[in-house]
């Protein structure tokens, strides 16, 4: 094998792919290591939200038997909603870092495949969520004697589904950013909130009008939060809700990756990658 062939061969296969993914994660580790405001941002909102809703839970528990019986349902909802929000934001903010630094041109002429870039964005999203939410969850144990980890294995199912749903939203936002530039940056912050009222985060699906329940039913998050309440209030893990969430997430993620790749192609057709800006 000639040196030239060896050079190309060395960039093929799953091991080379994994190394490129690691390289992208290293790029973000370097970034966060040198930027305390970015690190603070990771933990700031999850912790603040949890503290506020924790006190609200204490207050409501003193007035209502329901909250005494279902202690922690609000704190768990806050923490799991933050998983979804942070997951989406984790993908889009990592992508925005490349846009802000005008680095996409270098990335897309390196051997890094678009699929690997997507994988790196999702892996970074997972790391950001863990760094942001775990301290808040631990603080809830200390402050309110409530541990979200008491949910046990169902928590892993809820977390995973919300994480994957956040990836889907984040990837579509990245596609929009590629197409419309930094002028569309605010979408990264507000897009996921559009589904908050329909996700049955703090209230059961049954309180919504019938037509809205149909819309809520096509969101994986609705099935997760319904499932969470079932575990915390009825002490029952509903596999039907889990199945719904997994099936919907499979569709969402497939569509999101396809949309991202389509926008990437569109950016290459329109010459947008070297002109990323407002």
């Amino acid at each position, binding site marked *: 094998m000639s040196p030239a062939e060896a050079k190309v061969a060395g960039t093929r296969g799953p091991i080379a792919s994994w190394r*490129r993914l690691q390289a992208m994660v290293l790029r973000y580790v370097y970034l966060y290591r*040198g930027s305390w405001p970015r690190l603070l941002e990771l933990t700031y909102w999850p912790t603040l939200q949890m503290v506020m809703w924790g006190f609200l839970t204490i207050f409501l528990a003193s007035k209502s038997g329901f909250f005494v019986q279902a202690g922690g349902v609000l704190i768990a909802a806050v923490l799991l909603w933050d998983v979804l929000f942070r997951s989406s934001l984790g993908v889009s903010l990592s992508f925005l870092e490349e846009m802000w630094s005008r680095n996409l041109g270098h990335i897309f002429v390196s051997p890094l495949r678009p699929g690997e870039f997507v994988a790196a964005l999702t892996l970074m999203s997972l790391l950001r969520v863990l760094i942001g939410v775990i301290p808040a969850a631990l603080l809830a144990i200390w402050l309110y004697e409530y541990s979200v980890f008491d949910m046990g294995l169902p928590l892993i199912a809820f977390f995973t589904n919300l994480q994957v749903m956040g990836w889907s939203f984040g990837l579509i936002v990245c596609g929009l950013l590629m197409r419309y530039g930094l002028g569309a940056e605010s979408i990264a912050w507000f897009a996921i909130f559009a589904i908050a009222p329909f996700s049955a985060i703090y209230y059961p699906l049954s309180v919504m009008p019938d037509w809205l329940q149909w819309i809520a039913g096509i969101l994986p998050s609705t099935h997760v939060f319904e499932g969470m309440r079932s575990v915390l209030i009825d002490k029952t893990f509903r596999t039907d809700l889990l199945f719904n969430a997994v099936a919907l997430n499979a569709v969402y993620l497939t569509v999101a990756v396809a949309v991202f790749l389509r926008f990437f192609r569109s950016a290459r057709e329109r*010459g947008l990658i070297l002109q990323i800006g407002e």
Partner: protein
Amino acid sequence: MSGPQDGDPPAAIRVSRLTKSYGDVLAVNRLSFSVPVGTTAALLGGNGAGKTTTISMLLGLLLPTHGRVSVLGVDMLKRRYDVLPRMNFSSPYVDLPKRLSARENLMVYARLYGLKKPSRRIGDLAGELDLTAFMDRPSGTLSAGQRTRLALAKALLNEPDVLLLDEPTASLDPDTGDRIRSYLEAYRDTRQATILLASHNMAEVERLCSQVMMMRAGRIVDQGSPAELIRRYGRANLEDVFLDIARHRRTGDAREAAA
């Protein structure tokens, strides 16, 4: 412009009827050229002539409307990942992350290109491009000239066989610019690398390039070696040839050829 013929030297870059249009605007219009292995060629032209658009298509960052691009015998539209590990580029239109140090930036790209011993290669390049003293400073705090050298270091990390350089010595003082040109010449000669550059520095092009393609409004309007073009236009240097072409003047043999 003729396409490749039998008996031509092997081409590292081959472009055939390359066209890019944005609606009614033709940014690049049926461009055909080839660059032989181990040589340096330049795309010259005024602002908006189509140089950066052409380089973007060669890299696969921009998809052509029509035409074909092959690099090292690989079709860039169909199999770009088969050749990207053997290419690299630098451009003033693309930055490296400013919050990362020079060393961190190079380490990330060394790993993206799958280098076996990234630290050694980075150390070597830092020494050769006079970057050693700045390696641990955030890239955003480097001077324009230092950033240009860092971008060049990134472009050379994977020891590319094909190097695309957009304004490679912009922002460099004459001494550093001269050393970088010498470095590029030596790199090309020792590795039989092929370099395609876009530059407004005519002295640089005269020194480095054996082939010059003069572009205007998305087309190659003339090409040849710097000496051929200077003779054809009856001028003293390439800068005067550039001005003749940019201002639609024909002089010397060029006028006769056109007639």
